[in-house]
């Protein structure tokens, strides 16, 4: 990152903190609610973005995150409802995500299907299958994941409620951001992953098995989307409903791009997008403006378009050079 960009980021951060402080002084509960909602929405986007970035860093586009969310949410919900265990449901969600990831890898890496088409297959399959098998009479049967206070940290005003009094998958996501960051930029796996996304031929000549690593990464990445599905069904909502992922898998891709395919960047971007979702929820709840709810509901997506368009202007945001291309040896 260039010094000028770094400077801009600090200024932006300072402005945001000042604004939050101002609003908090004016209306404490309202501000807390919006910010808590921001983190809630950001968790799902961050998980999706991590799924996307592991794939894209290895050279594989994953537009099937939406489908991975939905399918995982379905199985997380169903298994919990059958076993009565949130934990088993979460595991089922992650396993579903891994399976969906494996499916994408089998198509995009193994069979060299066009990656956009492979991702679309996941989306359509997930929507169709979950809608068909969804049983309206079924319910979760247990209470969804509840907030866990992190000791004295939870007592800090505003920050405590927003960050340190959250349900388990949210904490897990924050930990995963750190893990993925270290793995991507410091570990052998990360170095090789970035290499196969930029120049698979170079990786091949030093003995790295490009196709195998891509297969592994795309499958593994599915696990993150799977956790996202579990989060959606078992922590955020507490039930399953038709098409409940509601475009957030695509939003996660925007978050990933805006966050420059880095975990922390993506989380910052997820908070921005999460904020628009939270704000929109508050607007609808309080009926602040006399605007049809459909228009207010557009807010996150309008922001997506504006932000993605703007991000092109912000400067060099280069895709991995081999993104979207199948690799042929020799």
């Amino acid at each position, binding site marked *: 990152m260039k010094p000028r960009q770094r400077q801009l980021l600090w200024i932006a951060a300072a402005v945001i903190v000042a604004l939050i402080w101002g609003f908090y002084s004016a209306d404490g509960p309202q501000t807390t609610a919006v910010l808590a909602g921001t983190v809630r929405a950001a968790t799902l986007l961050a998980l999706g973005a991590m799924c996307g970035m592991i794939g894209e860093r290895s050279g594989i586009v994953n537009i099937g995150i939406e489908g991975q969310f939905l399918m995982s949410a379905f199985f997380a919900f169903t298994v919990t409802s059958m076993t009565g265990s949130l934990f088993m449901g979460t595991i089922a969600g992650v396993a579903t995500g891994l399976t969906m990831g494996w499916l994408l890898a089998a198509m995009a890496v193994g069979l060299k299907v066009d990656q956009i088409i492979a991702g679309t297959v996941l989306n359509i399959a997930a929507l169709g299958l979950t809608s068909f098998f969804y049983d309206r009479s079924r319910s979760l049967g247990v209470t969804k994941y509840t907030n866990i206070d992190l000791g004295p940290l939870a007592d800090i005003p505003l920050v405590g409620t927003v960050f340190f009094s959250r349900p388990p998958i949210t904490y897990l996501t924050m930990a995963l951001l750190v893990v993925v960051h*270290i793995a991507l930029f*410091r*570990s*052998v796996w990360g*170095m*090789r992953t*970035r*290499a196969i996304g*930029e*120049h698979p*031929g*170079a*990786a*091949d*000549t*030093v*003995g*790295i098995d490009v196709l195998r690593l891509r297969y592994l990464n795309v499958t593994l990445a599915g696990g993150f989307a799977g956790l996202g599905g579990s989060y959606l069904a078992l922590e955020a909502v507490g039930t399953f409903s038709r098409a409940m992922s509601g475009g957030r898998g695509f939003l996660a891709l925007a978050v990933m791009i805006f966050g420059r395919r880095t975990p922390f960047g993506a989380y910052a971007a997820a908070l921005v997008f999460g904020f628009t979702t939270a704000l929109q929820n508050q607007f609808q709840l309080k009926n602040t403006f006399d605007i049809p709810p459909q228009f207010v509901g557009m807010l996150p997506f309008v922001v997506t378009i504006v932000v993605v368009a703007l991000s092109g202007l912000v400067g060099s945001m*280069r895709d991995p*050079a081999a993104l979207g291309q199948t690799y042929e040896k*020799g």
Partner: protein
Amino acid sequence: MTELLLAARNVTKRFPGVLANDDVSVELRPGRILALLGENGAGKSTLVNVLFGMYRPDGGEIVIKDEIVDLRGPDDAISRGIGMVHQHFQLVPPMSVVENIVLGAEPTKLGLVDLDEARVRVVELSERYGLEVDPDALVEDLPVGMQQRVEILKALYRNADVLILDEPTGVLTPQEADHLLRVLRGLTESGVGIVFITHKLREVLAIADDIVVLRAGRVVGATTPTQATETGLAEMMVGRSVALRVEKTVAQPGDVVLQVKDLKVDDDRGQLAVDGVNLQVRSGEILGVAGVEGNGQRELVEAITGLRHTSAGEITINGESLANSSTRQVAQTGVGHIPEDREKHGIVAVYSLAENSVLNRYYRQPFSNRGIMRREVIHEHAEAVVDEFDVRTPNVTVSVSSLSGGNKQKLIVGREFSEDIELLVAAQPTRGIDIGAIEFIHRRIVEQRDRGAAVLLVSAELDEILSLADRIAVLYDGKLMGVLKASLANRESVGLLMAGITG
């Protein structure tokens, strides 16, 4: 010292329809430099790819250090001490020098890549072998000469005692090439054996201990620099006597045809690639543009031929201002273009030879009438081109993709020359084609000059510039370093300008 480092014994490799290596045997001993000489398509690259484990041979055996081996892949070859510097560098541009060198063989500490340890080893290696390079620079910011050092260090880092270099000097200035040859000589002193692939005779004689010449997949001769001459080697490569120098008379320059004024052009990444270039080409002369590749030549040519927008300056052809015109407008003012990338800009591979022969004027009389193409006329024209330009093909209806590189190039030249052109822009006109076709195309370019065309010749092969051009312009970092009279220029003077050194 008699230990055999690397050898191919009776290696045969077939590809569909081609016998790429036919019973080839070569040997490399410690401290020796083996030059593999041959034209494009002679089987040099296939042979080294077999030695490096990229291809499996269909017959014969590979010996590494007195042991017959069965290589399963490049990693197998690497672990046995074979290092390869590919013609197209195998580096990851956004990663640092150190990261590129250790990729695939990363030192670790607590499960993470230990870049500090790696850096220490890289610096030590680069000092020992005189391969200075900034270990923390990003590869994408390095000039090609430096990138090549990274490639060599990559092999040395893996303790290679055999180094295979595929056409390593193609991207270097003459001075850089000399430095490379010195580095290689230094490496042999520590017992490393080197396989050096090239088609440049001068280098072979300067560096090799042993020379093996390949033609059409077979070994046609083995010799040493003391016994060989340039003419002798050229004949061995081609299989008949060849003229190494182009016969031409003194140029008779006429009026200015192409005038370029203060031209500025951006490259694909939006960076300034041509930076205020001024030049003139007169009818009846060849202006050669020399320079290491990537110094703005491509952008200059594309701006002149209408393939790329300019950001400032003027381009006039016969007094007509043509900057930012379409390629068709440029062609219609009498400009012929032999493009650098023949597959991308020169031909449409899936079209027939006949269709390709009229790509620049299929829409005009007599080839089209009211929007309908006239098959017979086009075929007649194609047959005339095939005859006159010696394109080897069964007939004119075959798809162009079935032709060899040299024949594709002759077809392009034939197409561009079949109308009287006033300006010829020839970019790398003989890249990757056989010596026979090179001779032919060189002769035709000189003919165009003598007929009165102005010729702008861009080439990365300095020898080509020196033998064809009447005046030589040198580009470095997008700027014109100077224009020399060819009669006063030599490798050294042009080479210094190519490295950006003036005065």
